[in-house]
Structure formats: structure tokens, C-alpha cells
């Protein structure tokens, strides 16, 4: 379990690092996606209970067995959907940026400043 949290933390930090440091707009989008993934991993890990089964309502449940928390899983799904949308929208904007500016270098895409 600890591994999950460490993994989530590292993913978030790497994602943030990429957004902060990389000047390529595509890489920034990758960083955002990585950040999202980290949060999703954390979200799933939060709901996990050791020894729990998948939260499926079946007839063949053994007595004494229990579910992992289903709510974070639902939330993760929502969050994944949103992350996918962010990535798609951001990538399409990058395409348009390339059309207008001829470059995807963050240092050059700065006509709106000051």
C-alpha cells in the first residue's frame, strides 16, 4: 500500500516538474496527464482495504468477506474521463497554436503578456 502512495506522489511531482520545466507544449500536456494519473492512483489507493473483494453485488458472496470502498473507484472513473477530456482539448489547442505561431515552444508562444 505504501508503494501506491509513493508512486502517486512521484507521479504528481514528475508531472508538476514537467509542466514547470519543459518548454515543449506537447510535453506540458503530457505533464498534465501525468499529474492527473498520479491523483487517480492516490484516489484508488485511498479506497483500498486489504483483503477486500471487488465491489460487485453477486449472489456467491462468502460470509465474512467485504468490499473495498466503491466510491473512490467511481470517482477515479470520473476523474479519468475528465483527464482524457483535458488532454484532448489541450492537444487540439496545441495543433491550433502550431498553426498560428508555427512553433510549439512555450518561450515563443507569449504574444499576450504584460
Amino acid at each position, binding site marked *: 500500500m505504501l508503494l501506491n502512495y509513493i508512486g502517486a506522489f512521484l507521479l504528481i511531482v514528475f508531472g508538476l516538474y514537467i509542466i514547470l520545466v519543459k518548454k515543449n507544449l506537447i510535453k506540458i500536456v503530457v505533464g498534465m496527464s501525468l499529474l492527473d494519473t498520479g491523483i487517480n492512483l492516490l484516489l484508488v489507493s485511498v479506497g483500498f482495504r486489504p483483503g477486500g473483494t*471487488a465491489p*460487485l*453485488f*453477486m*449472489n456467491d458472496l462468502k460470509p465474512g468477506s467485504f468490499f473495498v470502498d466503491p466510491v473512490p473507484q467511481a470517482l477515479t*472513473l470520473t476523474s479519468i*474521463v475528465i483527464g*482524457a477530456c483535458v488532454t*484532448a482539448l489541450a*492537444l*487540439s489547442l496545441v*495543433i491550433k497554436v*502550431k*498553426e498560428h505561431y508555427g512553433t510549439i515552444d512555450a518561450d515563443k508562444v507569449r504574444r499576450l503578456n504584460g
Partner: protein
Amino acid sequence: MKSNKKSYKSSPSTNKKSKNIKVNDVIITSCANVVLPIAIILGAYVIMHGHLSPGGGFQGGVLIAGAVAILYVAYGSDGVRKLFNITRLKASESMGALGFIFIASLGLIYGVGGYRFFANTISKGTPGTLFSSGTIFWMNFAVGYKVLTGIGALILIMVSSLNSNKE
């Protein structure tokens, strides 16, 4: 195979500019022919069994929409564009969303439990069978439809904008 030939003619010009995407490679085409039906059936399965097993409308929808991407890789943008009509896809997406809202508002219409949105009003059936869980099954269906058309349209738009970029 007709489309195959047609796009083959135009391929040299595209090939020059983009070496990375090699259109109409025989290996890719035949692999895609095998994978495509599987992807679609798997997607359909995931949508239908959303209330019984992990998965659901969104995942199934994405799986099916992935087929569009496979189609693009295999047959190029011409093949994809011939097969799908973007405006129809968009309209279908709205239909999916409207269907979802309609199913959700069945609770309002029937007035079960004090006019509740999202109330599960249809007979729930026996747990574990395909037609169980009342409205959830249908909602999964609506979501799946919306997602497959939506993401399909998205991929299509991206593909066409990539192409227009090169020309």
C-alpha cells in the same frame, strides 16, 4: 479493398512528407482486420455488462471509439472519412446525452419516491442477469453510445486536422 486501391494512388505524395505514418501496409491492414471486430465486440460487451462487472458505458464506448483509431492506422484518413460522417456522429452524441437525461428523468415522470431525478423506476429483475438493475443498464447504454460517438468524432476531427496540417 476498393478503398485500398484508391488511397494507394494518393499515398506517394503523403509518403514523402511523413515517413512515420506508412499507410496501407499489408501487415497492419490484415492485423487491423482481425483486431477491429474484437475491439467492437469487446466494447459492446463492456457496455452491456456495465452493471454486472467492472467497466461500463464509458470504458466500452472508448473501446469502440478506439476502433476508429485502428481504422485510421490501417486505412488512412480517406478510409475513415468514407466510413463516418462527422455531423451524424455529433448528432448521435447529443442523442446519447439526451437519452441519458431522459432515462434519468423517468423518476421525475413516474413520481416514484417523491419526484426524484435518477430514481430507479424500472423493474430491477434478478441480480446477476443481463436485464437487471433497472435504469442503470439503459443509462450505461446511453453513456456508451454517447462516448463512442463522441470520442469517435474527436479522433476523426484530430485526424482530419493532422492531415490538413500536412497538405
